[in-house]
């Protein structure tokens, strides 16, 4: 596979997340773009190096295609009736943005566990005193992106 095919695969992965709310399987991507499993695994490695997605350890699925998460998290998003998991607070807003700018975010305060429920529109969130915080500085986000 060449760079053009990598773009095709990446786009297919993202569109699968967008339409279903879950990670594609290796078989689904093989059928979608007509490549072998080894070709797709190699392309996943290249896309990871370009910080576009994070494959699962066994390459059978996608752990992260930011802002989408391939595994359940506390950050849940609903857009047009489809439910998604986001990787983090930033990505919860990111899922809404990627899917057109209108949707609902459900998450929590990590200290008090109080629920956060927000309806986002293209104008942004409603007035709120809630905060976003990240322990890892920007220069080190991709040193361990799953932890970040």
């Amino acid at each position, binding site marked *: 596979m060449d760079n053009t095919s990598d773009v095709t695969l990446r786009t297919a992965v993202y569109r699968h997340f967008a339409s279903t709310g879950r990670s594609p399987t290796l078989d689904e991507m093989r059928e979608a773009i007509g490549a072998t499993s080894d070709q797709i695994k190699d392309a996943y490695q290249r896309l990871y190096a370009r910080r576009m997605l994070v494959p699962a350890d066994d390459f059978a699925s996608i752990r992260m295609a930011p802002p989408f998460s391939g595994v359940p998290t506390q950050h849940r998003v609903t857009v047009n009736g489809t439910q998604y998991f986001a990787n983090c*607070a930033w*990505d919860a807003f*990111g899922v809404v943005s*990627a899917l057109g700018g209108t949707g609902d975010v459900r*998450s929590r305060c990590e200290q008090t566990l109080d629920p956060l429920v927000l309806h986002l529109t293209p104008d942004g*969130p409603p007035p709120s005193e809630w*905060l976003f915080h990240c322990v890892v*500085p920007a220069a080190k986000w991709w040193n361990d992106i799953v932890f970040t």
Partner: protein
Amino acid sequence: MLFFRSEDALDEWCKAGQLPRRPTATLPQLWQMAVSWYANRLSEEARRPDPSEIRQIFARIGLTDSFWDPRADEF
């Protein structure tokens, strides 16, 4: 990258976990970050911003602490 309902709640969380207290962003700032990173993520032309673009995005949003600098070496 987490949500907190107040500065007090964040302080308690950092103290309990012995984690560093970092600069925060408001939810309107977070929305601008999300739009800058992800609004075109489903298109074939999608790409992650490069470091200079990241600096510009954060500066435009008002996040100017070196914590947000993708090339900062002080952390």
